């Protein structure tokens, strides 16, 4: 997903429908627009209220060709609609190309489902840019009306990273997302008391796994509110207490536990998993996994040794395993987790063991001075 950087500074968003398309009844249009807003209100603290005769935050209109905003529509096909990121004036407004033939609840090559298009455009109205995940709602392409539509991981992750989660689902919600409704924090879980089973940098956020739960973190030291959440609510079929996790170069998420591994596309497990870990050439119970950018290389650590795996060739590189102390100077054996993190300027590699962590300087090839430090204090906001 992408975040435009713009967001509404209030949660009660108003919208006004300026006109209607002749393709549908007003009742059908209003219903489609309400359902489209509901996609987002179900998973965020935002509410959407229709206003009449007064300005709203989001103005909705159907127009053809040049319609006064300097971005003309192109007739039937091609561009279906556009919307503006949150802001004053035209900010947040959604324009639909009235040269299209809009429909509702209909999969027809010649018609465009208004709900699907509106749900996408309102994503822009709330601050999301286009997603490079083709299956995501916020991908720009209109494929077809999907009667089974539910907001996927990428979109959910995107909108909740801007507005947070809906911790108080409203009764009567018709759209029930199939994906995570994060559970209330488990008071028994003390994020500061122990180490983590695994830590992974996924989609530019840090995911920290412990037992059956995980935390998400966008900024160091500031775990997102509403967490921890049970892993099984997010990645269906994934067992607790994983050994390692990482985002592969192709965006797939790989989890390792015991003698098996799982691969997920977003929150959906690929078919035929779990599979035996010996397919990687690895023993059971690895300590940590460390993907190395887009090189397709992934390092695996266990005890005193590490391996380098080539994800493109699907084989372990020759000459491995090697002793950790041979190339990772200052890094301890028997780590609990390892991850790479971009701090806005450069990438650093972090190794965690128990409650302490070591920062490895990639350019110097050694652990930085002043480490190990307390992971909970530096990363999890613990006192």
């Amino acid at each position: 997903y992408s975040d435009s950087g713009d967001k509404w500074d209030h949660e009660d968003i108003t919208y006004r429908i300026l006109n209607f398309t002749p393709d549908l009844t007003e009742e059908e249009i209003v219903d489609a627009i309400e359902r489209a807003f509901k996609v987002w209100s179900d998973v965020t603290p935002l509410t959407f209220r229709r206003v009449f005769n007064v300005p709203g935050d989001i103005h909705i209109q159907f127009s053809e060709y040049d319609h006064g905003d300097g971005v003309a529509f192109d007739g039937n096909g091609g561009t279906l609609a556009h919307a503006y990121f949150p802001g004053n004036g035209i900010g947040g407004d959604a324009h639909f190309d009235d040269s299209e033939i809009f429909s509702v609840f209909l999969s027809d090559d010649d018609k465009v489902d208004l709900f699907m298009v509106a749900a996408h455009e309102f994503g822009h109205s709330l601050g999301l840019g286009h997603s490079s995940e083709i299956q995501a709602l916020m991908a720009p392409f209109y494929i077809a009306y999907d009667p089974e539509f539910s907001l996927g991981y990428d979109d959910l992750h995107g909108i909740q990273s801007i507005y947070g989660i809906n911790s108080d689902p409203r009764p009567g919600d018709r759209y029930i997302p199939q994906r995570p409704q994060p559970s209330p924090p488990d008071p028994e879980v003390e994020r500061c008391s122990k180490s983590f089973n695994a830590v992974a940098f996924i989609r530019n956020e840090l995911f920290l796994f412990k037992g059956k739960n995980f935390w998400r973190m966008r900024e160091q030291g500031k775990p997102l509110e509403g967490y921890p959440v049970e892993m099984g609510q997010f990645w269906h079929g994934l067992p607790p207490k994983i050994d390692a996790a990482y985002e592969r170069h192709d965006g797939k998420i790989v989890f390792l536990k015991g003698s098996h591994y799982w691969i997920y596309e977003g929150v959906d497990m690929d078919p035929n998993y779990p599979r035996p870990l010996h397919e990687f050439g690895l023993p059971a119970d690895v300590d940590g996994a460390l993907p190395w950018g887009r090189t397709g290389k992934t390092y695996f650590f266990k005890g005193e040794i590490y391996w380098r795996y080539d994800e493109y060739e699907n084989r372990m590189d020759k000459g491995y395993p090697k002793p950790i102390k041979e190339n990772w100077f200052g890094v301890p054996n028997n780590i609990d987790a390892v991850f790479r993190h971009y701090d806005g300027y450069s990438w650093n590699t972090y190794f965690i063991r128990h409650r302490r962590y070591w920062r490895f300087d990639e350019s110097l090839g050694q652990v930085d001075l002043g480490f190990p430090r307390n992971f909970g204090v530096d990363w999890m906001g613990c006192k």
Partner: protein
Amino acid sequence: APLSEEDAPSEITTGAFAYLSKYGYIRNDNPQASTIRRLEDYHSAIRNFQQFYRLPETGQMDEETSRLMSYPRCGMPDVIQRGDQDQTRFRR
């Protein structure tokens, strides 16, 4: 702006060039750029599009790329361009 017929090397299709420009993959701030530069920009833009949507990065207008571009879509650009070249980027 679309290339004129004289300027456009045969391997650049005007439709694809317009598409890539419209959705932010080609900057239009240098209409005086040489034909070679435009050709480089064009293939670079195709490669960026392919990279963004995780298609094989051929830099060529292959079938898979062309098919994806043929879908009706939202008019918002994929790439948000800021004032200077350094800030042109995919907003991930």
